[in-house]
């Protein structure tokens, strides 16, 4: 048993013990070393013993402390609570561009039951995840923001690449109908530049981080209506650029020329409202986040409808 293994384990235990437990890193490491080196106790058993010792000295419930083998292995659609320590097995479905240097990797994990966003912090110093690869991830923490769950990888997270594939579950829905409204907050917007904050600035202010320069973004908050059901949708920058045939830089130029960002939303309304679209993507709260869309040109079959009309 190498010293570095013990140091690593000690660090893990130290990270996971509740603040209320008075345990120094050195103290933990010493106890571990004694058990492993002097008493030949296997490391995972030693770990268990050390954690128990600290916990019995305090009033902390053992369940509050995560450990790799104590966590529940969960499906992604079972993640419905924040601040839970869980183990998951999932495929890296998508990797996104981190918005800040403090994030090493960010993207989407998927298993048979659905997908979830993950964030891997730079300071956690974990191995790099590869898109399309299936991993068993031990000890990740769940988080929630505006009803959407995510998992965060941390220093104690174990990453094990598995030699198998996962058919990522389809949690996307689709909607079809006319775009009947484009709501305020659409067009050229500014987002808070703080790490992992994507809030839209209102009058130059982020509700969390205050006054800021902000980064330009494009989006459409719209309503798709087919005369039977109403679905609110959000087109992100890429989808907005495509559907409105406008680029972010063109939008910025337009706004600059007009000294007004609202001209961008006006332009988007003019070219998209009243047209029919089929959109597809995951649902977030009451919105469908548009991943894919197409403009609909085809009709319902008039012959078929005529037959129905004549038979009523």
């Amino acid at each position, binding site marked *: 048993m190498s010293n570095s293994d013990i140091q690593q384990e000690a660090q893990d235990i130290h990270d996971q013990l509740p603040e209320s437990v008075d345990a120094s890193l050195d103290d933990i490491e010493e106890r571990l070393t004694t058990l492993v080196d002097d008493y030949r106790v296997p490391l995972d058993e030693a770990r268990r013993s050390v954690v128990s010792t600290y916990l019995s000295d305090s009033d902390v419930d053992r369940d509050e402390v995560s450990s790799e083998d104590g966590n529940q292995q969960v499906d992604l659609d079972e993640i419905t609570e924040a601040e839970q320590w869980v183990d998951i097995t999932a495929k890296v479905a998508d990797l996104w561009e981190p918005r800040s240097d403090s994030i090493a990797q960010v993207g989407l994990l998927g298993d048979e039951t659905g997908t979830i966003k993950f964030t891997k912090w730079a300071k956690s110093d974990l191995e790099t995840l590869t898109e399309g690869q299936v991993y068993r991830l031990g000890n990740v923490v769940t988080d929630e923001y505006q009803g959407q769950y995510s998992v965060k990888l941390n220093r104690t997270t174990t990453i094990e690449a598995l030699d198998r594939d996962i058919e990522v579950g389809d949690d996307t829905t689709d909607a079809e109908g*006319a775009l009947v*409204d484009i709501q305020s907050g659409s067009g050229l917007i500014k987002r808070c530049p703080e790490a992992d904050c994507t809030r839209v600035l209102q009058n130059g202010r982020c509700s969390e981080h205050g006054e800021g320069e902000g980064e330009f973004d494009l989006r459409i908050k719209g309503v798709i209506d087919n*005369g*039977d059901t109403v679905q609110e949708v959000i087109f992100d920058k890429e989808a907005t650029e495509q559907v409105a045939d406008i680029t972010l830089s063109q939008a910025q130029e337009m706004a600059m020329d007009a000294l007004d960002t609202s001209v961008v939303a006006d332009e988007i309304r003019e070219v998209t409202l009243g047209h029919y679209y089929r959109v597809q993507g995951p649902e977030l709260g009451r919105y469908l986040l548009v991943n894919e869309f197409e403009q609909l040109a085809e*009709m319902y079959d008039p*012959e078929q409808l*005529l037959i129905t*009309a*004549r038979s009523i």
Partner: protein
Amino acid sequence: MSQGQAPMRELAQRAFAGEFNDAGYTFRESDDDRAPVYALLPTGAKANRVFVVGTLTETDDVGSDDEYWQGRIVGPTGTFFTYAGQYQPEAAAMLREVDPPVFVALVGKPRTYETDDGDTNVSLRPEHLTVVDADTRNRWVTETAKRTLERLERFEDDTNEYAAMAREEYDTDPDQYRQTVIQALEELTDDAETAPTSQDQAGGVTPSTAEDASGSTTEVSTDEDSPSQSGGDIGDFDTTDLDS
């Protein structure tokens, strides 16, 4: 209707002009000042908002002091009228600048007003008015046919409170709206030159769907040979004439 702070967004109903222009009865479902106003569609549905696509054939500033733009939007079975003034600046600007004829899509609210001779006219107050293409127009026609037929199929349901309301408030036979649907669809299938193969055409009835640019009246030919047609005695009818 309201659920806490975020009331449900009202659906945009689909109806042909022949039906929409008959929807002169309006009502609210609560005493709240801000409760939505609904127009009652004669096929048995409430409409706080409608979505309409058709040909904008004429625009006219009918205001006296301020601009008040009228637009005529012609569909396969009649004409929708829309009015936009200072409170609908985008739609008013569009009506001022557009060069008809052009296909337009309109999302708007039904509005009714009484004429001097006591008739109730129904028009549209636009929320959005945009230029679209022929594909969008044709899709709308089939979608509107589909939704209208769905309403007609539910019309006899005992639990259909809006159908009951329609029977109470209107003396129109809902079958005339079925004829409207047939008329609209036949125009499309003729356009596509997919010669109607059904035996319905065997009687040599040529659907007449001609509409002049003013869209003031529309002649309707019924299909005399349609199977199980109960309303064959309806015959020709004029769409509600909103010219006044």
